[in-house]
């Protein structure tokens, strides 16, 4: 007879951690299946397959990472290596993270991003911090932040280059519904879906009938799963309840403060973006949450505050994963502070929760109200650089060219920036002024730095002129020559250059010269350089850049007085007509200065020799 003396108690609940994780995985797989079906049915087989492969790749990479770590950490005392590895893989539950991470990515994400992200989640966020049970940050959320920041340009919602294959994306920038919504009017402060490039209504939003991250769109399914998982005690109901409740309440307050439709705005806030998914699958991660019921409720409120704050005031279209990361940092602090008996200090606990909620409502409501007011009051004078009282006389430009440039489209965690510039030219096609009509740059410090350095940029481009602008071909913002960018605001400077290039793209510039002598024996040959600007086959303007003067004395004066008329004669002439001339027309000659006039004519001919080439 052997009497076992392990410590009690000897009646344990049948529920195990593995069961909990498997049930969570089952819920995630349901969400994944919907993602696959939507991509297959609404878009196409290639997309459906990508949807399958995204999660598969994530799982495989995570599995390999798990196996690697288990193998490295294996010790004699663990028993046979194979058994140890299998045991570790099953009981570290990295596969749950793998699925969650893959579900936060857009369909067009490259495979290498998934691989890097999965490795980052597993090896860095999880194992480097101590493995299951010890990680500080939710691995899926942190990995999502990491790839969103590092590969922002690759987070596309379409495969290849055909944006139109995917319904509900913006056809020009490929931006998803969430990004479109956040750039409608004042950021995140619109109560209607009608302004979106995508054609969706509220039901579409909740039924996932639009293109977004793989698992985040089908809000209703996620909310149903939330209830089921909470009942089965897989997740704690307090966290998603307080999170969604805070966001909903904040939306109500914002709508009241800014005059939006309360119900519509609240529904949009809850259904848009990654809120529901993050609430149910990432914020509820028990390892990174406080252990006390009070703590679990409190992080819901704080996360709700930060999510809405980033939405209305931050740079990004969506703030869910950042809110989760911040709240993960707070979890140990909250646990440290909540030491008393759990049934005591109830009023105090409610007080803390309520205070956090009030701060959330007040700050977000206030910021929203201010943003809307600013947007309304600044619309009429959006191109305000021209309405500033200036001491200089306003110069009326001879011609104004307009150009636009946009930064790369990306999904959710960066926003598309578009810049429109107007280039004022004088008659000689020199740049008088460059003004920016729309969205010069990002907010905050960047804006100030930009404003301070802007005049210097204009001077630079004035100095190099259209020719210089056309000659600049830096590959990216980092390759811009000195003087053409403002330090710290290089992206916007790059965008400005591209907009300028767009503006002057229709202007063709030709250079030519001619050399001749006024007389045979005692006159030095004179060379005249011209620059000819052509637009749409018509000579726009001719500049004589070198060798304007001819012999001195009367000839010089005569020429100087009359050659502008010659230039005017040629300006406005079709290039084809000019090239047909064998010799300058009478209007193209200055009486008494025929050699120089001829020289001018030949110089222009030489310049236009490469026209149409």
């Amino acid at each position, binding site marked *: *007879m*052997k*009497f*076992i*003396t*392990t*410590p*009690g*108690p*000897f*009646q*344990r*609940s049948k*529920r*195990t*951690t*593995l*069961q*909990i994780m498997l049930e969570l995985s089952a819920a995630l797989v349901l969400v994944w299946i919907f993602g696959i079906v939507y991509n297959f049915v609404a878009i196409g087989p290639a997309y459906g397959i990508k949807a399958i492969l995204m999660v598969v790749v994530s799982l495989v990479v995570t599995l390999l990472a798990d196996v690697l770590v288990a193998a490295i950490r294996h010790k004699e005392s663990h028993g046979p290596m194979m058994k140890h590895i299998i045991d570790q893989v099953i*009981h570290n539950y990295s596969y749950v993270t793998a699925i969650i991470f893959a579900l936060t990515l857009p369909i067009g994400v490259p495979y290498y991003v998934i691989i890097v992200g999965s490795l980052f989640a597993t090896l860095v966020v999880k194992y480097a911090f101590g*493995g*299951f*049970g*010890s990680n500080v940050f939710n691995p899926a959320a942190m990995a999502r932040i990491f790839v969103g920041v590092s590969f922002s340009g690759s987070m596309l919602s379409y495969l290849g280059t055909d944006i139109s294959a995917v319904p509900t994306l913006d056809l020009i920038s490929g931006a998803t519904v969430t990004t479109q919504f956040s750039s409608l009017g004042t950021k995140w402060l619109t109560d209607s879906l009608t302004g979106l490039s995508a054609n969706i209504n509220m039901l579409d939003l909740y039924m996932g009938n639009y293109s977004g991250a793989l698992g985040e769109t089908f809000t209703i399914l996620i909310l149903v799963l939330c209830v089921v998982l909470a009942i089965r*005690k897989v997740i*704690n109901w*307090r966290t998603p309840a307080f999170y969604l409740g805070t966001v909903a309440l904040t939306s109500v307050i914002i709508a009241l403060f800014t005059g939006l439709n309360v119900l519509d705005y609240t529904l949009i806030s809850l259904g848009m973006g990654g809120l529901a998914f993050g609430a149910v699958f990432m914020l509820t991660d*028990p*390892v990174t*949450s*406080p*252990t*006390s*019921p*009070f703590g*679990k*409720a409190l992080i819901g409120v704080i996360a709700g505050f930060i999510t809405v704050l980033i939405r209305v005031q931050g740079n990004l279209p969506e703030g869910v994963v950042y809110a989760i990361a911040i709240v993960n940092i707070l979890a140990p602090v909250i*646990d440290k502070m*909540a*030491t*008393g*008996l*759990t*049934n*005591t200090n*109830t009023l105090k*606990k*409610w007080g803390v929760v309520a205070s956090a909620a009030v701060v959330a409502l007040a700050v977000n409501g206030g910021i929203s109200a201010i943003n809307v007011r600013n947007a309304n009051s600044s619309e009429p004078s959006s191109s305000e650089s021209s309405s500033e009282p200036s001491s200089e006389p306003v110069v009326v430009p001879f011609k104004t060219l307009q150009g636009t440039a946009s930064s790369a489209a990306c999904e959710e965690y960066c926003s598309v920036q578009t810049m429109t510039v107007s280039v004022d030219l004088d008659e000689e096609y020199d740049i008088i002024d460059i003004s920016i009509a729309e969205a010069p740059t990002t907010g905050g410090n960047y804006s100030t730095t930009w404003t301070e350095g802007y005049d210097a940029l204009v001077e630079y481009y004035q100095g190099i002129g259209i020719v210089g602008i056309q000659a600049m071909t830096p590959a990216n913002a980092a390759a811009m020559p000195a003087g053409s960018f403002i330090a710290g605001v290089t992206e916007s400077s790059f965008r400005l250059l591209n907009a300028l290039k767009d503006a002057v793209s229709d202007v063709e510039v030709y250079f030519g010269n001619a050399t001749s002598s006024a007389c045979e024996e005692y006159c030095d040959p004179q060379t005249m350089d011209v620059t000819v600007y052509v637009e749409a086959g018509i000579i726009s303007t001719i500049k004589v850049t070198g060798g304007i003067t001819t012999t001195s004395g009367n000839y010089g004066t005569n020429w100087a007085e009359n050659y502008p008329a010659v230039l005017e004669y040629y300006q406005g002439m079709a290039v084809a007509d000019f090239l047909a001339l064998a010799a300058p027309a009478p209007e193209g000659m200055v009486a008494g200065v025929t050699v120089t006039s001829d020289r001018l004519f030949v110089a222009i001919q030489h310049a236009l020799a490469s026209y149409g080439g």
Partner: protein
Amino acid sequence: MNIFSSVAKLHLESHKDLEKASVLHVLEDTKVAKVFMPAVGPNGADMNVLVKAGDPVLVGTKLAVRKDMYVPMYSPVSGTVAGIELVYHPGLSRPANHIVILNDGKNTRLPDALKVIDPETATKDEIVAAIKEAGIVGMGGAGFPTFIKYQGVKNIEYVLINGVECEPFLTTDFLSMQLEAKEMIQGAMLLKKACDAKEVVIAFKVHKNAVKEALDACISCHPGVRYVEVPDVYPMGWEKALIKQVFNRTYEKLPAEAGVIVNNTQTAVAVYRALVKGEVLTHRLVCVSGDGVKNNGNVLVPLGTLAREVVEFMGGYAEEEVVLLPGGPMTAKAAEEDGFPIQPAIGGLTILKNKIHHEVPCLRCGNCTMHCPAFLQPVEIMDALERKDEARLAKLNTMKCVECGLCATVCPSKIDVSENVKRAKRYLKFAQAKAAAKK
């Protein structure tokens, strides 16, 4: 409902076959050759042993007296003292001195072993003195000397008779209330008088119809006695939880602060028998249960019978390896061997097949915190213990743990939470004693 608080309870699977439990098995005295009575108190201190090897004893002969409090111990059988032997003591988890008595099976009583009192005319002090002299200790599992609860108490409104038996498997209270309802109530009336309470309340769990019937039959004869049914959750039988449930009162250290004194049903029966019949405690009901023993059932055994013999009486072990629990599965500490005697505090032998749990890292789900009946945070206590953080252990009210085991029961990672909190308590106690000694 306080959503920030622990729910403080859990419905456990009861593993109680009420029909089987209503059958009384009797382990005859003639079958028990030797009985063993401890010569040490519950904390290991030696008792004053009054007999020696070779002494003849009768039922009611005083064998020994505890030194720290006056608790006399009487012989449950007649026979001869064989001597003092080292026998395993489950409460101390080690062998301890026991008085061995060779049972002659005749049950010859010592006349006037206990002075009988008249329940009608006895005064409060006489009752308490009689309880003290009878050496009655709690039969609900704690074995606390009953008279101390009544000595010098004031402002007591209720005597709460605890028949809740919230641990899974245990059913002796259930059977006792059916068979001894009258004695229990009469004993309760004596206890009521002992503290000038105004009412006796008998508590037991719902769905125990046999008990209800037994009580209904005789409760009307006694004014000032009523019963109440409580929910089938664990740990409903814990004094604090029960008083909160029945009277909606709380207290810090002792139920007397809330105007209540709590005693087990079988203790009340013992009080009646001792005070009115002059009988010392000679037998007690033991619930033999679990899948590790061939037959399950309630057995009336002579006090001092070795557990091993009780198990044999019930068919013997069903497995080679078992967990042998003197008590219930939640609070009892597994015994290292079966050679220990049944004493008033051992109401059950729960014998279970060994289940192996795969322990994984804590997932910080907070289940333990969510269910702790004392409203503590076991997961935080475990963390603080690992970091040897005494200040935090004190702030977390570690000493308030009642060792009910619920935290470990609900833990999905199968961590020995309850054991770790017990270690934390020992660590904190030691650390605080060290700090106090330094001063």
